[in-house]
């Protein structure tokens, strides 16, 4: 499906899900749309419905109340869809590993393809992550 991936890489539509974050990563993602970083010049835009999404951005350490909703949401996204985990929370749970309300294994809830670590990751790091994704899609 590499021809499909190449078409996809020209203009990625992104849907943002926050699953129990502290909202810092979410604000840095929104910062990417503002005039200083301006992600729209790469053809990347944020969409309002998951059915239009090519890439899902997940932020936050997924807590147990949100996990079933996240699974359902992932099932609604038309495949193929790529999942990017933004921040240290989806990568390793950050400092919340001792809590009673956290899922033990995030990959079982939603399979993540690309991690962008950082607390929060700088906008430049996020742009580099996206560029890596585009490179992989282009083969």
């Amino acid at each position, binding site marked *: 499906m590499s021809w499909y991936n190449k078409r996809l890489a020209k203009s990625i539509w992104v849907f943002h899900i926050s699953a129990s974050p502290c909202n810092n990563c979410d604000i840095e993602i929104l910062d990417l749309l503002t005039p200083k970083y301006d992600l729209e010049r790469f053809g990347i835009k944020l969409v309002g419905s998951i059915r239009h999404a090519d890439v899902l951005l997940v932020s936050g350490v997924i807590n*147990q*109340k949100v*996990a*079933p909703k996240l699974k359902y949401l992932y099932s609604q996204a038309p495949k193929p869809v790529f999942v990017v985990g933004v921040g240290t929370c989806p990568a390793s*749970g950050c400092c919340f*590993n*001792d*809590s*009673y*309300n*956290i*899922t*033990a*294994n*995030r990959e*079982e*809830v939603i399979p993540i393809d690309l991690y962008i670590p950082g607390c929060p990751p700088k906008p430049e790091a996020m742009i580099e992550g996206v560029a890596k994704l585009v490179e992989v899609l282009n083969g």
Partner: protein
Amino acid sequence: MDNFQEFISEMDDKIGKIIEKPRRLFFDAENENILEVAEHLFKKMGCRLSTATAQETYKGIEVLYHFSEDKTGSYYCPRIVMKDKSNPKMNSISSVVKGAEWIEREMMEMLGITFDGHPHPEPLLTGNHPKEIKTPWRFNTNVQLRGSNNG
């Protein structure tokens, strides 16, 4: 300057042991008197309820309210200790202070306390929870830490 001496002499028969620090007054109160104490602090002195802390100790279940007197920057904290750990009950102050509704709901679900007279005793944070978590802050709770829970 704080008005602690005036408060202590006015409410002398309704409060117990006192710990006094600069701008902080912690005192014990009984369940029968808590509504009067809350009314004196909220309505007569014009204090604002900041929040309430609940904790299980070896003596019993303890609820500590925090009332802020903004004019002087001091805090008045009545403490109620419920000795019956299997069924802790006390009067709710939400009829006097509307702002106490949410924090009493949270204390109900986290520690299993019953607040008599509360208008909406539903859980606030763990309602509709897929794992049916009950009273996570008690010593004998049913929740397990992350390592043993399955995702």
